[in-house]
C-alpha cells in the first residue's frame, strides 16, 4: 500500500504518526485502568496480560511456523515449577522468570527434534504425549511439585506503595508489553520471514536457503520460552502451584486462544487471550452453563470469522482507512 524505500523502513513498527498516537493512547488507558475500575477487573486484566504472553508464543509456533503443538500445558508446568523452585531458593524475580523461560525453551528444543520429521497431526500427538508425560512426572515425584498440597510460590512484593493486585497488574503489563514488542520485532525480522517460509512450504524454504533444522528448533525454543514465562507469571500471580492446574484442558484453552485470536497475527495472541479469559468471566452468572456458552461462542466466532478476531480487526481497520470508499 505504501512505498517502502529501505529495509530500515520495512522494519519500523510504527510506520505512521497516527499509529503511534493510538498505541500511546491504548498504553495510557491501560496504565490508568486500575484507578477507574474495581478490583475484579484488574484481576481479570492481569490474567489477560499473562495469557497473552503464552498465546503469542504459541502463535509464533502454530500460526507463523505452522507446527501444530498440543504440549502447551507441559511447558506451562515446567515454567511455573522452575520459577517456584528458583524463587524458593532465593533467586531474584527477573532471574526466576528468565530461568523459567530458559528451562522451558530447553525442553522446547527437545520436543522440537521430532518436528524435524513429523508433520501436522503426528507432531500434535507427540507434543500432546509430552504434555501428558510432564503432568504425570509432576504428579508422581513430589519433590518436583512440592508435595500433595501443592507448592506455595512467593507472590510479587507490592512496590511504590501500591496494593498487591495493582502492582501485579503493572508488572504483568510491563512484561506483556515487552513480549509483544519482542514478537513484532521477531516477526518482521529475517527470523520471522524464515518461520513463515517454513510454514508455507518447508521444502521450498530449504531450497531457498532456510536451515530447516535450525529454524524449526528455534521456533520451538522461542515459543516455549514465552510459554514458560507465562507459566512462571501465572504461578507468581496465584501464589500457589499444583500439577492439576496443567492438564489437557489448559492445552485446549491455549489452542483455542491461538486460533480464535487469529493465526499468524501478533494482535491475535492478545485478542485470543482476552477471549478465553473474558468469555467465562462475562457469563459467570450462568455458572453451570459457562462451558456450553463458551463452546458456542467459539463455534460462532469460527464460523463467522474464519481468520479469527484479529482478522475482523484488520477488516475494521481497512474499512476506516479506505472510508468513504469500500
Amino acid at each position, binding site marked *: 500500500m505504501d512505498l517502502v524505500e529501505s529495509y530500515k523502513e520495512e522494519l519500523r513498527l510504527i510506520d505512521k504518526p497516527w499509529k503511534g498516537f493510538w498505541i500511546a493512547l491504548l498504553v495510557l488507558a491501560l496504565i490508568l485502568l486500575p484507578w477507574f475500575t474495581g478490583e475484579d477487573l484488574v484481576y481479570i486484566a492481569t490474567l489477560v496480560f499473562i495469557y497473552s504472553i503464552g498465546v503469542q508464543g504459541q502463535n509464533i509456533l*502454530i500460526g507463523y511456523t505452522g507446527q*501444530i503443538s498440543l504440549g502447551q500445558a507441559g511447558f506451562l508446568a515446567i515454567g511455573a515449577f522452575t520459577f517456584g523452585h528458583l524463587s524458593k531458593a532465593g533467586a531474584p524475580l527477573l532471574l526466576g522468570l528468565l530461568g523459567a523461560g530458559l528451562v522451558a525453551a530447553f525442553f522446547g528444543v527437545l520436543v522440537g527434534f*521430532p518436528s524435524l*520429521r*513429523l*508433520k501436522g*497431526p*503426528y507432531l*500434535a*500427538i*507427540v507434543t*500432546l*504425549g*509430552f504434555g*501428558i*508425560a510432564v503432568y*504425570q*512426572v509432576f*504428579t*508422581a515425584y513430589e519433590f518436583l511439585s512440592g508435595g500433595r498440597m501443592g507448592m506455595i510460590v512467593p507472590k510479587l512484593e507490592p512496590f511504590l506503595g501500591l496494593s498487591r493486585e495493582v502492582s501485579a497488574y503493572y508488572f504483568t503489563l510491563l512484561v506483556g508489553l515487552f513480549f509483544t514488542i519482542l514478537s513484532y520485532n521477531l516477526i518482521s525480522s529475517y527470523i520471522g520471514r524464515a518461520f513463515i517460509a517454513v510454514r508455507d*512450504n518447508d*521444502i*521450498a524454504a530449504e*531450497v531457498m536457503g532456510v536451515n530447516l533444522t535450525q529454524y524449526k528448533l528455534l521456533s520451538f525454543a522461542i515459543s516455549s520460552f514465552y510459554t514458560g514465562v507465562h507459566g512462571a507469571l501465572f504461578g507468581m500471580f496465584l501464589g500457589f502451584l499444583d500439577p492439576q492446574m496443567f492438564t*489437557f484442558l489448559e492445552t*485446549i484453552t491455549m*489452542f*483455542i486462544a491461538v*486460533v*480464535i485470536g487469529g*493465526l499468524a497475527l501478533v494482535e491475535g495472541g492478545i485478542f485470543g487471550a482476552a477471549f478465553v479469559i473474558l468469555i467465562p468471566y462475562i457469563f459467570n452468572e450462568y455458572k*453451570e*452453563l*459457562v*462451558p*456450553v*456458552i*463458551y*463452546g*458456542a*461462542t*467459539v*463455534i460462532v466466532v*469460527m*464460523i*463467522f470469522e*474464519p481468520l*479469527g478476531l484479529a482478522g475482523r480487526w484488520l477488516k475494521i481497520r481497512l474499512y476506516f482507512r479506505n472510508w468513504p470508499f469500500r
Partner: protein
Amino acid sequence: MANLLQYMISGLSMGSLYVLVALGIVLIYRATRILNFAHGDMATMGTFFAFTLLSFRLPFYVAFIGSLLFGGLLAILFYFSIIIPAQRREATLLGQITLTVGLGMIFQGAIVYLWGTDSKVMDFPLSDANVWKVGPVYLNELSLGTLAVGIIGSFLFYLLIQRTRVGLAMRATSENLAAAQTLAIPTRRILALAWGLAAFLGVLAGLFLAPALLLDPFFMLEPFLKGFAGAILGGLNSLPGAIVGGLIIGVAESLTGGYIALEFKNTVAFLIIILVLLVKPEGLLGTEFKERV
C-alpha cells in the same frame, strides 16, 4: 508367565475399545482431514443417553441401539449445521479443528448440566465380577465381552468399507473428493455418513467402557486420547493401522501398568508412539506425505 498372559488379555480387551475410538478418528480424518476433538465427548453424550434410557426402565438392547443411533445423529447434525457452513466461509483446517473443540466443550458442559459431575454406575448385562479360571489366567465376563465387541465391530466395519457400495463411495470420497463428485457420488451425504458412523463407533466404545470405568462426564477423555494415539501410531489415514495401533497401545499400557509403575501407564504409551514415529513418521501403516514443491 501367567502374569504376562493376564496382562496381555486385559491389554487386548482395553485395546479393542481403543480400536473402536481410533477407527472413528481415522474415519473422520480420512474423509475430511479434520482431527475430531469432540469425538470423546460425543461418545460420552451417547453413553449418558443410554444411562437415561436405562433409568426409564427400558430393556438394555433398546437403550443400546437407541444411544448408538443418537450418537450418530448428533454427529451428522453437527456436520450439516456447523462444518458445512464453516467450509462455505472457507474456514482453515485449524479453524475446523477448533470447531470440534468448541463442540466438545458444549457437550461436556451440557453433560455436567444435565447429569451432574458425580460418578454413576450404569446397569450392564455383563459384569467383571463373573470370573472364570482358564489354566493359569483369570478371564472375566466384561473383558471377554469387550474383546468380542472390538473384534466383531471392527470386522463388520471392515465389511462395510470394503464390501459394500456405500463403503466404496466412502473410499472414493476420501481418496479424491472432486473425482468422486464427478462420478455422481453424493459426497456430502457420504461425508455426513462417515461422521455418523464414527460417532456410532465411539458410543459403542463408550458403552463398554462405562462399566469398566465409572460413568462421569470426563470418563471418555483418557480413552479418547489413547484412541487418538493409537490412530496416530497406526497411521492416521489407514483403517487397519487404527486397529493395530489401538491394540498396541492397549497392550503396552497394560504391560507397563503391570511391570513398571501404574503412574507411568500413559507416559510409556506415548513414549512408544514417539519412538515409532521417529522411525516411521507416518505411523506404522500410514502412507501420506508425498510432497511436491
